[in-house]
Structure formats: C-alpha cells, structure tokens
C-alpha cells in the first residue's frame, strides 16, 4: 500500500468515524489532557493498522477493534503542568450543550470495569452479539450473559437518578 493511499484512507476514517473514537476516548479517559493523549495513541494505532486492514470486515468493526484494544491497554500518564500543551491539543471541548442524561450515562459507563465498558459501547452503538463476539473473541453466549448483566446494572443505576 502506498503512503498516499494510507493517508487517504486514514483521513476518510477520521472524517467518517470520528464519533466512535470520541465515545471510546470519553469512557476510557477522564480529563481533556488524557483524552488528547488517548486520542493520539488510538490514531497512531489506526494509522499502523491500515496495511493490515482487509475489506473482509466492516470499517466500523475494524476501527472499534483497534481503538478498544488500544484503550484497554492505555495507561494514564503522569504529567507536569505545561502551558504550551494547551495550544497543541488535538481535540477541544464542545461549546454546544448535550442531553442532560448523556453525561450521567458516560459517568456510569466509566465506572464499569474496562471490559464491561467495551461491551457497553458496542451494545449502545447497536452491535449484535455475533459482531461483539467477533470483536472481543469470546462466545456469543458469554457476550449475551455479560450484556444482560450490564443492562440490569445500568437500569438499576438509572432508578437512583430518577429518584
């Protein structure tokens, strides 16, 4: 694969699948510095993964695989306060308001263990058990049991929110 082709595909992935990356980044890292750090890590792995990408699987599935694998192994870095860092941020916080319960949902997902966070993201993004099993490498029945447990947990937590 030529470098131009790699760049072209990379740009189209960034443009078309930006929301996937942001969602993963938000549940695996808390503050903006960490989000920038993880975003950078994920995009580097995506860039490296392009030569291995075969059209046998969907782009979204591939991007999820690479991004989740990276987020799972990513570790928060200890950093010193560096004022110059601010100007180098790759992602910046939005100005617009979001749904009031969206922050709550993100918070609840971020409290789950790292594996359950992946499952929840895939579930909320509409992946079926078979696709999840393909991405995670575990049986569909195990996926089903875990998803049910997560659903029950989230619904229980939402009762606290409404009460």
């Amino acid at each position, binding site marked *: 694969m030529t470098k131009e082709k790699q760049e072209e595909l990379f740009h189209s992935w960034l443009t078309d699948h930006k929301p996937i990356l942001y969602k993963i980044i938000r549940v695996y890292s808390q503050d903006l510095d960490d989000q920038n750090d993880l975003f950078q890590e994920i995009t580097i792995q995506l860039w490296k993964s392009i030569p291995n990408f075969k059209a046998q699987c969907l782009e979204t599935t591939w991007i999820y695989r690479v991004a*989740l694998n990276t987020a799972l192994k990513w570790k928060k870095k200890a950093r010193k306060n560096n004022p110059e860092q601010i100007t180098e941020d790759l992602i910046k916080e*939005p100005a617009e308001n*979001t749904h009031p319960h*969206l922050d709550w949902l993100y918070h609840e997902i971020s409290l789950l263990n790292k594996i359950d966070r992946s499952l929840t993201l895939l579930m909320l993004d509409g992946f079926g058990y078979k696709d999840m099993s*393909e*991405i995670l490498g*575990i049986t569909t029945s195990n996926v089903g*049991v875990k998803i049910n447990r997560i659903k029950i947990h989230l619904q229980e937590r*939402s009762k606290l929110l409404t009460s």
Partner: protein
Amino acid sequence: MNIQDMQKIWDIESNQTLYVLDEASVLNRINKKVISAERRANSTENFIIAINIFVTIVLFAIAILNDNLGTWEYLMAIFAALTIGFVLYYRKKRYEFQSQVGDKMLDNLNKAIHHATVQAKMTDLFLIWYIIGVGALTLSNMIIQNISIWLILPIAITMVIGFIVGRWEQRSIHEKKRDELIDLRTKLVEEVN
C-alpha cells in the same frame, strides 16, 4: 430509564459534533510520534550493539596481539558478542509484536500477556546475565590480580545495588503490567452466572 431510552440519548451523540478536531495536525503529530518512538527504541538498541561490537573487537584484538590467552578476555568477548545477539533477537520480537494490530480483543490480550511475560523474563535474564556475568568476571579478575579490597568493595556494592534496582524495576513495571493484562483477560473470558 430503560436501555432503549439510554440508546436514544446515546444516538444523539453519533449525530452531532461533540468535540472540535484539529484534523490537519493529527497526521502531522502521528508521523512525528511514530518516527520519534521508532528512532528512540532503535537508537538505544543501536547504542548497546555498537558498544558490544567495540568491546568484542578490542578484547579479541588485545588477546590476539599480546598473544595472551587469558580466560577473562575471551569470556568477556564472548559475553559481549552474545549480548549483540540478544539485542537483535529482542528487536525482532518487538517488530513482530508491533505489527499485531486489529486482532480480536482476546487474541490481542493473549499476545500482550505473552509479550509482557517474555519482556519480564528477558529483563530478568539480562539482569542476571549482565550483572552476575560481568560482576563475577570482573571481580574474580580483580582478585586474581591482587587488587586492593578497598577498590573491589565499592565495585561489588555498586553491582549489588544495580542488581537490586533492576529487579525492582522489573517487578514494578513488567510483572505489574503482565498481571494487569491477566486480570483483564480473566474479566473478559469469565463466564457470568
């Protein structure tokens, strides 16, 4: 709130821009980071290889030119040559590991655990190999040459400290990382009742 409600809230995010992305600098940053990480890893390895090639050549040259068949010189030369082999083997393993992206999460975790285990073992082996190997050869040579105990002692202490610090680093970084990965794999594959 049920899961369908959560799904609706979630879908809002898919259709709106929640962050502003400076796309132009992303590729630039990636290129820089990939190149610098590669260069950093390679330069450390190249440095170790260069030093050991130099040591091997000098020791063999001294032994041959002086017609001095001292065991110490030959052992050190062999030791340095084997270190080059070790670094090259480690680099090969690193490249193999780096090319494995996009696997299933379980496969990826298994590979990462294997890599962390190999890394921990390698560091352990290198530590024992280098500190005990170099230490034993250097100290025995110093004792044979009747060098003052006051010179031998600080060198011996420095080597012991180096060994302890190396072991600590190996346990607190490599083994800890491996244990965290094993914990993640357990969470992934555990059957929930």
